[in-house]
């Protein structure tokens, strides 16, 4: 088993207990009320301005369209074709302007609101609306085996929570698929491999090799037969590991490069914590522990950190930002990643 044990003569390391705690929802709410009131007011003004701009643009375009049709008909023999073209142009103009206005508002919302809200969780935490977790990190996790041809993302958060360095962002990996349609023509389409939140965090134990925790949909339906089928799954890395916790085994299928490393990483208490964490989520969860780094992929059913265009910018919108941040950062506390009693500091 390739696990590092420090030699007792190695240089002394810091033993300062950095106890980072996830701020409570109530504390966060109080912070919003006391420090963000002005920002919320400004953003609400911006939001109303954006809606007004979209409404005016729509009214102007819809007002100009009949005039364009009249002029076009006078110059052209086919009124139907002119009306059709004018209608299409009007719709395209409304969509383009609407997109431009909402994009500008989103940038303002994320820059002015989410950045300070993220820093409430940790003074050195950084947020960037346009950045995302590097694709090398995504590939290093080896959670998703399909090779991607397009990789994008947004809403990047990074920092050090206690002793745990982490980064997370929304990412989307896709590959291009070629197929032949019913008329025999070659077509291309993009297929999504993964779209959701991707978290990279420093794991609290040093080891080499990998352990992968995949959602298990077979175990609850097929029981022991599921194990046999999972042993033959060729697209999974490493070998299947059967663990002792039945509740954990019902939810996940575990693969690892080494049986002993799998049990070193997935201690009974960590399995319990992962089970509880998964039970609180309403969406699938993938994990990879690779060479001392933890990778987590979550597929929430909504786009995180996005403003609600038709709702007032108030405390409630901030609380929904708290929930989004908590999905990413909560894992540090939920999995007890700051406990550093083993060789890794």
């Amino acid at each position: 088993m390739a696990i590092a044990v420090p030699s007792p003569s190695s240089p002394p390391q810091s033993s300062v207990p950095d106890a980072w705690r996830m701020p409570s929802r109530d504390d966060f709410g109080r912070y919003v009320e006391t420090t963000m009131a002005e920002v919320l007011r400004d953003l609400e003004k911006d939001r109303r301005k954006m809606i007004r701009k979209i409404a005016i643009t729509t009214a102007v375009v819809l007002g100009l369209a009949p005039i364009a049709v009249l002029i076009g008909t006078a110059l052209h023999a086919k009124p139907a074709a002119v009306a059709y073209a004018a209608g299409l142009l009007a719709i395209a103009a409304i969509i383009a302007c609407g997109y431009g206005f909402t994009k500008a508002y989103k940038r303002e919302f994320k820059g002015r609101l989410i950045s300070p809200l993220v820093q409430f969780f940790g003074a050195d935490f950084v947020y960037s609306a346009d950045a995302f977790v590097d694709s090398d990190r995504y590939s290093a996790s080896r959670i998703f085996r399909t090779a991607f041809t397009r990789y994008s993302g947004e809403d990047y958060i990074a920092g050090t929570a206690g002793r745990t360095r982490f980064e997370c962002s929304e990412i989307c990996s896709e590959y291009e698929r070629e197929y032949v349609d019913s008329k025999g023509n070659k077509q291309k389409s993009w297929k999504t491999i993964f779209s959701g939140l991707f978290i990279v965090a420093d794991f609290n134990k040093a080891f080499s090799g990998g352990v992968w925790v995949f959602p298990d949909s077979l175990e609850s339906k097929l029981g022991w037969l599921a194990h046999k089928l999972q042993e033959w799954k060729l697209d999974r890395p490493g070998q299947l590991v059967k663990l002792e916790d039945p509740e954990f085994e019902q939810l996940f299928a575990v693969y690892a490069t080494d049986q002993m490393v799998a049990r070193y990483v997935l201690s009974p208490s960590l399995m319990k914590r992962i089970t509880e964490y998964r039970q609180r989520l309403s969406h699938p969860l993938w994990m990879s522990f690779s060479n001392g780094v933890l990778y987590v992929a979550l597929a929430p059913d909504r786009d995180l950190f996005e403003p609600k265009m038709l709702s007032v910018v108030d405390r409630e919108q901030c609380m929904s930002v708290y929930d989004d941040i908590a999905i990413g950062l909560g894992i540090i506390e939920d999995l007890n990643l700051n406990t550093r009693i083993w060789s890794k500091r």
Partner: protein
Amino acid sequence: MTPLLVVGGIVMLVLLVVVIMYNGLVAKKNQVDNAFAGIDATLKKRFDLVPNLVAVVKQYMQHEAETLTNIAKLRSQAQAGSAGSDAHLAAENQLTKAIGSVLVAVESYPDLKASTNFLELQTSLNEIEEQLSASRRFFNSAVVDLNNAIQMFPSSIMASMMKLTRRELFSVPEAERQNVNVGNLFKS
């Protein structure tokens, strides 16, 4: 011709099943041995740390001289027993308990608790205990696999022909199963 083909097919199928069963049992038996070797390797790491622990601790813990002597004695006993023997495992279990009691007693020695050497040792011991726990769990999982194969039909027939017998699980010593009474631990 057709009946011959059918009989030949059945014989081939039976042979295939026998080969798969035989190889499966051998793999499971080897897995148990491999897992046991893992435990032994980790115990060896801990064994090597004991002299360091005694050396670091004895200058601070004058009142625990008896415990420290006992640890040194248990280490010698563990060294004397052949790997995997009952005496060897019993000595290792007692060593686990003795090291645990030293780590608890350290609470009464603030200077020792703050010593860098001791902190390093404690980290190494925690690491080794965690690895030991992983090795034992792997061993038990391998033993359960082997025991299932030995007891379940039809592999049980092959197992009895191979003279394979059930293996014992690595169990926690009786004393460690009881709830920890923290109050007693600090009585000295």
